């Protein structure tokens, strides 16, 4: 049987998993990618601020 990542046949040492945080590489627009989504978010924030 071929050892896979789903089993323990690999014989790899049992160690505590390492934390490998996913890095931020893009300046993410919290409103999403499209200009429309950005506009909607802006309007929502304006509305909420003045509500």
């Amino acid at each position: 049987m071929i050892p896979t990542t789903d089993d323990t046949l690999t014989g790899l040492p049992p160690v505590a998993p390492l934390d490998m945080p996913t890095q931020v590489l893009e300046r993410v627009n919290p409103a999403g990618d499209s200009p429309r989504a950005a506009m909607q978010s802006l309007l929502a924030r304006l509305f909420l601020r003045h509500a």
Partner: protein
Amino acid sequence: MRDRLTAATLGWRVTALGFALLCATAAAVLMTDASFAHGGSLWDAARVALIFITTLWLAWGAAQALIGLPDLRRRVRELPAPTAPTVVLLPICNEDPVAASARLEAMEQSCRAAGLTVDFAVLSDTRDRQAQAREYAAFLPLLRERPDRLRVYYRNRTDNHGRKAGNIEEFIRRSGAAWEFAVILDADSLMEGETIAHMIARMMAEPRLGLLQTLPKIVGGSSLFGRAMMFAASFHSPVFARGLQRLQGETGPFWGHNAIVRVRALAQCCGLPQLTGPAPFGGTILSHDYVEAALLARGGWRVEVDPAIEGSYEEGPDNIIAYARRDRRWCQGNLQHIRLLTAPGLKTWSRFVFVQGIAAYLVSTLWAAFMIASVLATVTEPAPNYFPEPYQLFPVFPDDRTREIVALAIGIGGLLLLPKFAILAQAVAARRTPGFGGALRATAGVLAEVVLSSFIAPVMLAYQTRAVLQVLSGQDGGWPANQRGEGRLSLPESIAAGGWIALWGLAVLLATGWLAPALTIWLLPVTLPMIAAPLLIWATSLPILDGLFRTPEDARPSPVLSHYRALHSAPSPLPAAAAHAA
């Protein structure tokens, strides 16, 4: 951790940039002089701008080589015994399992011979069931625990998320904590045990060093193309890499393999995200190595390349088609970095490295644009007016600007050739040529490589221009498997791969002859090799005797290389189908 930009690194950078700007300005001035002698048009302005950018790129490459010429040996420091727990990672996906296992066996024995205790882990991403079975069967004899052998692990990943970077990432997350360092290899990598020991010791001695990259020598080429690449990599690359080392300083490169990394640093900094949007610009990061180097530097770790480390090898493409296929993937990977230029927190030099990678591919398109602009500028040039004054007795002949154009051509040719001949002179002076068969044979090799690359360059320009246009128009090239080993092509295969280049070359030649006959002769060095592309692709894939492009590895093969060849040429215990699986 504090970022340290040494005065030496800054000095090298200013020198290289100054040299490149000087050359580019000189080229632009000559072109302006020639183009605007009789007025000038928008096309003339375009070609001045294009010659500035393309010359800047050429001169930057030349500066890198010239900076690498002085062989300033660094102080050899006392290194500790290489005792830190280290794993050698071999990520594979649809590779020839017999060759891959032979390489691993050769390295395992080389490590033992060096008195080094490391573990090996084969990280398979192969999906085809039959190929998986053949692969596992090939590695199985190495997996059994024996007191006289180093430990070898094997696992097949059930989820291929993130390709090679994802494969390593999965291993680091799950099992990385068991080791301090990881030597990352490619399926065609070979490294001497002594080399691995030296790298572990270096990492132990320098706690801020996150990644140490070697300059792998290309081995295994048998064709004219493959051996020319081997020669260039062995003769020229160490000097170019030394220049790169001086320019990059502590913000060095990672080329994805034949390098050692600090597991903790990799885990801390290099969890790669999927980029938003679809491929080719979104999705999995293709050229992950450049990004990982930038992320390690962002995290405060030093990333260094050391071309002086010997005993590091890889195989290269053995024909133009295999090279172009790999280049298509690299093109997409580098252009994808456009998305990352504004990534938060990166060091300025890391962003500049991304720009260099992008420029390396865009520049082909710019050369093509320069040629088109030159033809259009000539076509749209108004007819000379011999009698500009109403009552003029003698005609006024237009100034002949051939001298400026010839000076420009010589300058550009010089930038292409100067580094190679300077490296030849340095090699003779430093007595580096005996490994290449002596000074005469090395000179013949350099000349033959220059001639060959002059013929091949327009063909590569065509492939790269097509690749750039494909990527910019949103076509995803995917991740085709590397084709290693035999590179011999048939003529029909060569025509199928290069026929379109021949047709374009012929079309450009005929159009130039019709629209701007004066330019025809200037474009011949580009159009003739393009027309001959199928023939070039075929001829350069043929095997040659090893007399011409001799390298030190031919005369005195490294022990790990000899051992691998012996193992690989031995009768395979696997069925014939497994031996030929790729």
